[in-house]
């Protein structure tokens, strides 16, 4: 049994006592001398990491009844009467005897399993903990937070808001002092980068410097929070968490279209929608009553996972993978839990059974007909049209135009009737007409009787009837079959399972094949009823080019036939060998018996009335001789079409053309409207089973949707679907959501979370360095109505955040990672901020909120060398200078600049921030065309806007990038460098020309080449400064 919830709530009453008693030194290096050992901080991590595998939650690997993840099973009587833990008496405690034994046969963790012994420090901690009474504490993160009282501090004048009280109280205990507030220039740069992702302009800096009011800084913060740039800044990290990509992520890694979801995120941050709503809409927007388009788009969150279109995969294996990805991502992002560890077995460290994983999995397992073998060249179902507001209007306008044009044409009805009957009267009996628009192939007028051994072949080329999987076509033939098996018409390999298009008779039924690979990439369908043998019938097969069997219609004598879909998975482009002939009387090695005539192949999908017309053997003249009331509907359609083609007056033709054009325009526009993959709930939920060892084909116990049993449970009336889950996640009593969220934001400002393991709030995670602060922020966040902007505001307006980031050897020694925050954050910027800052400072940045992803500069060949094909087609113009969150993200070939600067590759959900410092980064900033061009434009700006003297120009460049002028020694170095390069380029103008040739933006024509090259070199130097890529 896991810890029952009831008991948790009871224990929650003691939470403040238990936990806040434990607020002594937190960091190992600081707490080495602490006299009081705390269970959660000091002991549980040792148990978890070193003992739980055999003495923890996983029943399958538990070796004895003693398990150290629960007090009741940790302190027990063992064989021989010894007790595992005797509070106050280490010597009598078996666990202490075993961990401290020098005898390898006795010592735990066991040597025979290859485990190392505990360190002397760990052994001492456990000894001291037992000696001090072996006090147990419930696991902190599973207990709902409560608002802690603000701690008393000596230096209360330093405190700007409650964050500071918590930080300062800890500093005072450690004998540390906060740093002075950072200078105004550093401060505005820091907060502007943090809230908008680009540096402040010199004018913004000047305004801030000139504002001497006490609320000057807060005014800046409010201005930044109101900027759309804030949304762009926030969205980027959320895209990483949501594993957003513009491609599918496996094997050939084809494109998908999810940017409308990304724009939903931008909009959500812009409108500052509360985080609980932000959560509910993304997890279950489709299940909200009267779900709006926006709410449905939001659910794209859980379709951002990779999808596999590799030929030959076993679909269910990957369908399970998609559902597991949703489950794990949801657990990481909202719960900070490593539930994925319970996919194959019970969790090794945290109180989660394997069943808990699959109960959560069950929430995400109900997409109707979800395909594991996904389409790799676009979105996989379910997806929806997601028009932009402007497109919605445009579509309505076009719909209206269609209606008007249709009405205009219908108004011609009396005239049509009149003209047509007049026209009919003059037709000769043998006058005929047929559909010729799009006709690519027509058989010779006399075909032999087919004997089941021969066919009539027309040599193939790559133009006639050379159809890919997205090419619509129509095939028509008149047939009089004498055998119920045979190939009728084809362009395919000459064996049955070969590649190509074919029309067959199989056991009397018409069979249509479009085959790339027989076994897994094909459409095959047959008519439900057999054809009639030994009589003439008209057959028309129409394919709409939308790669689904439902887009194929088979007409017999003008009647649309019901069909059985035999196979429906045409996922990849293909063509037959152009040398393959068009065969009449044969397909796939099977031959036709009987007669065929008038075989036609059209390169378009005919309209139903056209198909009807093709089925009519009578000539137009013959039809004209019948009374309209005696004509079949097909005959009427044929003669009407013939009239419109040949006999109608210009007025009628115009009206009809207007209607056809209006429809075509509308349809073309409709096709151009972006789609987005979304969550949809099947009315009949799919059964979910615990999968043994995580294997898709080893179902075990059947489970229902539910949240992990060791967490507080939702009220009984909560629906067992994603909406219920989302409500539970955002319920105030959920102990994790708010803590996990505020912690992630904290990380984005200070480089490290209050809980460093932002993705693990379980027992292997780090104990929070400021537990009360974490809880205070969590409560404050919820009390504010989950107000995301308010949360950012309170963090960046704290005195803690506003400190100078200067450090000292002593501070580095004592707190190298700056966890205690006796100084401000100094953190290397993320790749998107580095690039956007260079674009902004150089004046190249093109700001436009949202839209399809763009393809800026990338070294040529990167896509081809891994995957062949056409590769990366770089955009031109404005698209080169959009903010980095819009950069097209191919998952198997990460944009190289992003990869160099530590971006996760978006294959899986990533919430931790990683930063390295490598020579590849140096090469990138020095030689990537992006930064060479930015340097050139920055150099130009310095010359054009920075005044006349080198000093003022250099000052200006520095201010654009760093929000400050250089200090004297810095300026001197820059001036010297400028001189060196100016001399060089004066003497070598060709080199200057070459150096200035990078990037597609135009060069300012009136600039002196040598001088501009020198300023470009200096600007490049500035772009490469440590300070430029650092928030300080």
């Amino acid at each position, binding site marked *: 049994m896991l810890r029952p919830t009831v008991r948790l709530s009871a224990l929650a009453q003691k939470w403040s006592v238990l936990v806040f008693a434990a607020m002594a030194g937190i960091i190992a290096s600081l707490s080495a001398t602490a006299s009081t050992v705390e269970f959660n901080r000091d002991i549980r991590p040792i148990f978890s990491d070193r003992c739980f595998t055999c003495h923890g939650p996983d029943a399958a690997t538990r070796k004895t009844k003693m398990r150290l993840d629960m007090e009741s099973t940790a302190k027990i009587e063992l064989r021989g009467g010894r007790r595992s833990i005797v509070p106050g008496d280490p010597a009598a405690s078996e666990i202490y005897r075993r961990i401290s034994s020098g005898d390898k046969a006795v010592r735990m963790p066991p040597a025979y399993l290859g485990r190392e012994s505990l360190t002397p420090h760990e052994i001492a901690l456990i000894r001291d903990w037992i000696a001090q009474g072996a006090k147990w504490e419930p696991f902190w993160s599973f207990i709902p937070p409560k608002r802690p009282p603000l701690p008393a501090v000596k230096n209360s004048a330093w405190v700007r808001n409650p964050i500071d009280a918590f930080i300062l109280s800890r500093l005072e205990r450690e004998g540390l002092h906060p740093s002075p507030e950072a200078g105004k220039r550093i401060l505005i740069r820091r907060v502007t980068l943090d809230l908008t992702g680009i540096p402040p302009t010199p004018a913004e800096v000047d305004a801030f410097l000139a504002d001497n009011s006490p609320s000057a800084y807060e005014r800046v913060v409010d201005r930044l929070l109101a900027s759309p740039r804030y949304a762009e800044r926030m969205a980027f990290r959320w895209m990483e968490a949501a594993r957003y990509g513009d491609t599918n992520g496996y094997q050939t890694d084809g494109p998908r279209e999810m940017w409308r979801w990304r724009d939903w995120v931008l909009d959500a941050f812009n409108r500052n929608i509360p985080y609980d709503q932000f959560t509910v809409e993304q997890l279950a927007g489709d299940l909200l009553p009267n779900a709006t388009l926006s709410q449905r788009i939001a659910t794209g969150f859980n379709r951002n996972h990779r999808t596999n279109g590799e030929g030959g*995969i076993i679909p269910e294996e990957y369908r399970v993978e998609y559902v597991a990805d949703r489950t794990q991502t949801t657990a990481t992002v909202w719960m900070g839990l490593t539930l994925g560890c319970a996919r194959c077995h019970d969790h090794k460290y945290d109180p989660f059974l394997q069943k808990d994983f699959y109960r959560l999995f069950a929430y995400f397992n109900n997409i109707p007909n979800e395909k594991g073998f996904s389409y790799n060249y676009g979105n996989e179902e379910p997806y929806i049209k997601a028009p932009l507001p402007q497109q919605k209007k445009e579509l309505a306008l076009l719909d209206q135009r269609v209606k008007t044009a249709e009405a205009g044409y219908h108004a011609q009805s009396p005239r049509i009737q009149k003209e047509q009957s007049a026209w009919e009267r003059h037709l000769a009996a043998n006058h005929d007409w047929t559909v010729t628009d799009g006709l690519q192939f027509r058989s010779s007028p006399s075909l032999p009787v087919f004997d089941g051994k021969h066919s009539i072949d027309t040599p193939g080329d790559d133009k006639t009837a050379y159809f890919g999987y997205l090419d619509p076509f129509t095939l028509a033939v008149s047939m009089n079959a004498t055998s119920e098996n045979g190939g009728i018409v084809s362009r395919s390999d000459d064996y049955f399972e070969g590649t190509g298009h074919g029309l067959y008779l199989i056991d009397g039924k018409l069979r249509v094949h479009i085959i790339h690979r027989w076994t897994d990439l094909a459409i095959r369908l047959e008519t439900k009823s057999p054809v009639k043998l030994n009589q003439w019938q008209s057959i028309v097969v129409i394919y709409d080019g939308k790669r689904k069997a439902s887009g194929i219609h088979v007409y017999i004598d003008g009647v649309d036939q019901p069909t059985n879909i035999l196979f429906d998975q045409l996922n990849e482009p293909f063509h037959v060998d152009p040398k393959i002939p068009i065969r009449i009387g044969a397909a796939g090695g099977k031959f036709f018996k009987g007669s065929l005539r008038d075989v036609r192949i059209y390169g378009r999908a005919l309209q139903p009335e056209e198909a009807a017309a093709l089925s009519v053997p009578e000539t137009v003249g013959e039809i004209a001789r019948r009374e309209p009331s005696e004509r079949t509907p097909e005959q009427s359609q044929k003669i009407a079409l013939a009239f419109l083609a040949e006999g109608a007056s210009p007025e009628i033709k115009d009206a009809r053309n207007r209607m056809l054009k209006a429809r075509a325009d509308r349809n073309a526009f409709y096709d151009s409207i972006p789609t987005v993959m979304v969550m949809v709930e099947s009315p009949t939920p799919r059964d979910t089973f615990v999968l043994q060892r995580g294997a898709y084909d080893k179902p075990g116990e059947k489970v229902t949707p539910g949240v992990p049993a060791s967490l507080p449970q939702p009220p009984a009336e909560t629906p067992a679907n994603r909406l219920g889950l989302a409500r539970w996640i955002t319920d105030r009593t959920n102990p994790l959501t708010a803590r996990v969220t505020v912690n992630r934001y904290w990380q984005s400002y200070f480089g490290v979370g209050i809980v460093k393991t932002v993705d693990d709030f379980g027992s*292997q995670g780090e104990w929070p360095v400021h537990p009360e602060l974490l809880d205070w922020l969590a409560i404050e966040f919820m009390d504010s109505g989950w107000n995301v902007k308010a949360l950012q505001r309170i963090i960046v307006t704290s005195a803690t955040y506003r400190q100078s980031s200067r450090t000292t050897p002593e501070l580095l020694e004592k707190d190298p990672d700056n966890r205690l925050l006796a100084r401000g954050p100094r953190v290397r910027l993320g790749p998107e901020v580095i690039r956007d800052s260079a674009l902004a400072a150089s004046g190249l940045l093109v700001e436009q909120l949202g839209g399809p992803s763009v393809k800026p500069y990338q070294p040529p060949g990167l896509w081809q060398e891994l995957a062949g094909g056409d590769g990366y087609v770089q955009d031109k113009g404005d698209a080169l200078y959009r903010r980095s969150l819009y950069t097209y993200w191919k998952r198997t070939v990460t944009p190289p600049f992003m990869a160099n600067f*530590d971006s996760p590759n978006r294959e899986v959900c990533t919430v931790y921030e990683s930063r390295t410092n490598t020579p590849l980064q140096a090469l990138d900033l020095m030689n990537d065309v992006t930064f060479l061009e930015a340097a050139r434009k920055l150099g130009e700006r310095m010359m054009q806007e920075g005044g006349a003297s080198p000093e003022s120009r250099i000052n200006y460049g520095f201010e654009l990038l760093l929000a400050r002028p250089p200090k004297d020694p810095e300026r001197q170095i820059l001036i010297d460098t400028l001189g060196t390069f100016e001399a060089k380029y004066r003497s070598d103008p060709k080199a200057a020309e070459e150096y200035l040739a990078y990037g597609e933006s135009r060069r300012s024509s009136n600039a002196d080449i040598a001088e501009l090259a020198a300023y470009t070199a200096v600007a490049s130097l500035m772009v490469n400064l440590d300070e430029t890529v650092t928030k300080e």
Partner: protein
Amino acid sequence: MACSCCSDDLRITRRHFFGLQSTGIGIAALASLLSREGISATTAGRVGGLAGFPNFAPRAKRIIYLFQSGGPSQFELFDYKPRLKDFQGTDLPDSIRGGQRLTGMSASQSSFPVVPSKFTFAQRGNSGAWVSELLPHTARIADELTFLKTVNTEEINHDPAVTMAQTGFRLGGRPSMGAWITYGLGCETQDLPAFVVMISSSGGGQPLYDRLWGTAFLPSRYQGVKFRSVGDRVLYLSDPKGFTPTDRRHFLDALNKLDTLESQEFGDPETEARIHQYEMAYRMQGSVPELTDISKEPQHTFDMYGPDVKKPGTFASNCLLARRLAERGVRFIQLYHRDWDHHAGLPEALPKRCQDVDQPSAALIEDLKQRGMLEDTLVIWGGEFGRTVYCQGRLTATDYGRDHHGRCFTVWMAGGGIKPGLTHGETDDYGYNIVKDGVHVHDLQATILNCLGIDHTRLTYQFQGRHFRLTDVGGNVVKPILA
């Protein structure tokens, strides 16, 4: 079941400050930071790596992995099955197939006709290893090689199988083998990356993915650096036109001065580390062109590697560069050659691939041996899986294809730590199942690490609570092949 969750604790902070060298960095900061990271200071020419690694005396100092992507057919190359002639055209018995899951490409085939190799085999050298006529050069050096006939994987599709072979797990999200090894062992050069990847530019066949040389949750500094055959060898290596190495030196001198001022003001060791990275970048700008300039190699070397060796981007050219990288202390050199995925038209296509790689692979072994480097360089040759004994698609008198087969396939190894001239493992008469001594992909990985002196259960990294390792939860060292 072995468990990765309880291995030696090597908790590493996520913040890696250094280029891992002591020159130019404040000694106090270095000492404190390195010890916190568990990273040993430079020892005996080594740069970076974890304290305590290698765990025991290594037999190999470096790896050259000649990865043959797509799944080369063991039936036509190494796994000689004379009885298949008797079974030709008969359906693979269910008793042999044993419920093996098949790919969606052949699962719904109406029959599974056995097809023997069209190519002839002979026993080679003193060891008597079977090598087909398609690989005459490999045959010549067979006594240097050890053939593992029973390498196996559960995966039956390329993406998961290649990902498994290179990261130890079927889905993306785990560090690659080269990343693990350079994380653990660092490197023996200050002028080149520790982990270099080269892909034959002939392309074709199945795509590759960044994740195969990526770092996933390991710090990105351990990612494989692609040496390309077009454009810059290393991305962004070349200075812009009109900007000479002298200009770059001026530039860097100024940058160092400015960053030093910055370092003095803020006192952040990260700044010093960055200065250092720029110096290393500068050295790479010299060392990479020197490395890739093969003009000074003697003619007999060119002759050894074959006619393609002077064409950048060929497998032959990459093999020669691999030897040059190995000489310069690069730890892990990963080559990829593609287009081994012969579902159809195998008799025509396979000889071409063999011709691409046979001579250069053999030349690399001989070259290393002549230089005395084979004893501490481990070379591995193989793909992500093998191919089926039965024909996929249409079987004709002259043509056939084979689907993916993971139950057994052949990989050869040579050099540091491996006994030469062995054949390890045995498959049944159909070449479908293992009869003796299976080698799972994780076993292969454990063995590779073992040759480097690494206990594969100890090279771990804690991420999301779990101690991950290359071999996931498996891996047994193949001891009989160790020297």
